[in-house]
């Protein structure tokens, strides 16, 4: 019991502490990919930039626009943080497993799916045209990515025979990494993950060049920051899930003797996918709205159903 609460403290602490450095890293990586230095002014190489941002955000005036639905407007950012934290709580990192749940994968999916309500509520309640369009786009984006993601995960679950992350990793220790068996599911899940957290090329609800700021146009101060807390925690959680499902999670050499190594392996594997989201942001232009829906429904949905058949065949062969 005390082990559970300690691990919970560790995981949630990690999530909350990791977000400011990740925003700094993102700006730095993006900068260097675009041949510019990124933040340089605050501290050596701009390393204190997140701190400066935090102080600025905390002392901003809290503005609720005229005609906004005050209750929904105030709840929406809380919703984003709440769903992200709950999703984070069930994901094991190495031997640190706060809530050892049998249906952990399903729970993570559910929690990251409801986090889109935050974007929709924010857009709907702001009484702003840009926010409203962004909220509708967020809702429609769910209609796009949810199904291919579900079917891709279903293929993986057929192969592993469990929703429990510990059993999934145990299976991979016996038979090899999941990506060797399910490369198609990996590709689909990765793309759907980017769509789920609303990152480029699927950042339609934000769309800063067409919708001002999207759903957070009217938000200021920590309310504004809370959306990004939720978003970045979701990125970390889903990266951890990718590392668990397809790359053996904490398995690796010498983990039996030093369990701490497992934590490091898994964080490195997940860290690569966090980096990948920055990379995608620097590389791809944004999808147009109907293009996004079209590619989800007409390309990825049939592909993910095809993957279901592949997984069923593999489950027979591997046993």
């Amino acid at each position, binding site marked *: 019991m005390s082990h559970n609460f300690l691990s919970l403290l560790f995981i949630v602490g990690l999530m909350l502490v990791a977000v400011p450095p990740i925003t700094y890293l993102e700006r730095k990586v993006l900068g260097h990919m675009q041949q510019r230095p990124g933040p340089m002014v605050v501290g050596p190489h701009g390393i204190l930039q997140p701190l400066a941002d935090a102080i600025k955000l905390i002392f901003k005036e*809290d503005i609720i626009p005229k005609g906004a639905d005050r209750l929904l407007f105030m709840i929406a950012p809380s919703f984003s943080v709440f769903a992200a934290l709950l999703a984070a709580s069930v994901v094991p990192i190495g031997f640190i497993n706060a809530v050892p749940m049998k249906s952990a994968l399903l729970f993570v999916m559910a929690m990251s799916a409801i986090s889109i309500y935050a974007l929709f509520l924010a857009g709907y309640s702001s009484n702003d045209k840009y926010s409203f369009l962004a909220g509708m786009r967020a809702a429609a984006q769910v209609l796009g990515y949810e*199904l291919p993601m579900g079917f891709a995960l279903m293929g993986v*679950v057929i192969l592993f025979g469990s929703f429990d992350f510990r059993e999934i990793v145990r299976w991979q220790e016996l038979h090899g990494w999941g990506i060797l068996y399910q490369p198609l599911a990996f590709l689909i899940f990765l793309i759907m993950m980017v769509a789920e957290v609303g990152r480029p090329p699927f950042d339609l609800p934000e769309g800063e060049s067409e919708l001002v700021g999207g759903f957070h146009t009217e938000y200021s101060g920590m309310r504004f920051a809370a959306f990004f807390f939720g978003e970045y925690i979701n990125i970390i959680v889903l990266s951890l899930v990718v590392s668990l499902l397809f790359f053996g999670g904490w398995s690796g050499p010498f983990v039996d003797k030093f369990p701490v190594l497992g934590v490091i392996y898994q964080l490195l594997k997940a860290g690569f996918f966090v980096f990948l989201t920055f990379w995608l942001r620097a590389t791809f232009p944004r999808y147009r709205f109907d293009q996004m829906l079209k590619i989800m429904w007409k390309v990825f949905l049939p592909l993910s159903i095809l993957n279901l058949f592949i997984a069923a065949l593999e489950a027979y062969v591997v046993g």
Partner: protein
Amino acid sequence: MESYLVLFVFSLVAIAVALLVPNINLITNRFLKIDKKEEGKYEPYECGIPRIAPLNRRYFAFFYVLALVFLLFDLETVFLFPWAVAFRKLGVLGVVEAFLFVGILLIGFLYALFKGALKWE
């Protein structure tokens, strides 16, 4: 059972954190001198000009059709997840039945596709 208790306690903590973090500004604003006479900043943003027409909360009918198709398939995934977990225990018959189920829904999907439910107009 114990893990669910931990999750329950944690969800209470998460609610507290989630309510606190976005509302910090309500506390800090007490210590700041805020000009409330400036009316313009409380107006919803619209290109920096006064609003021409109020917000009209309507959107393309296309999305409602899409949402209906989505609901159908989302229910399908709900039915198929328990099947996926128990895949190895079900044997050949369970597999054939599940794929028949997917097949019937695929026909529905093709019908929607050719009816133009997924076509942007």
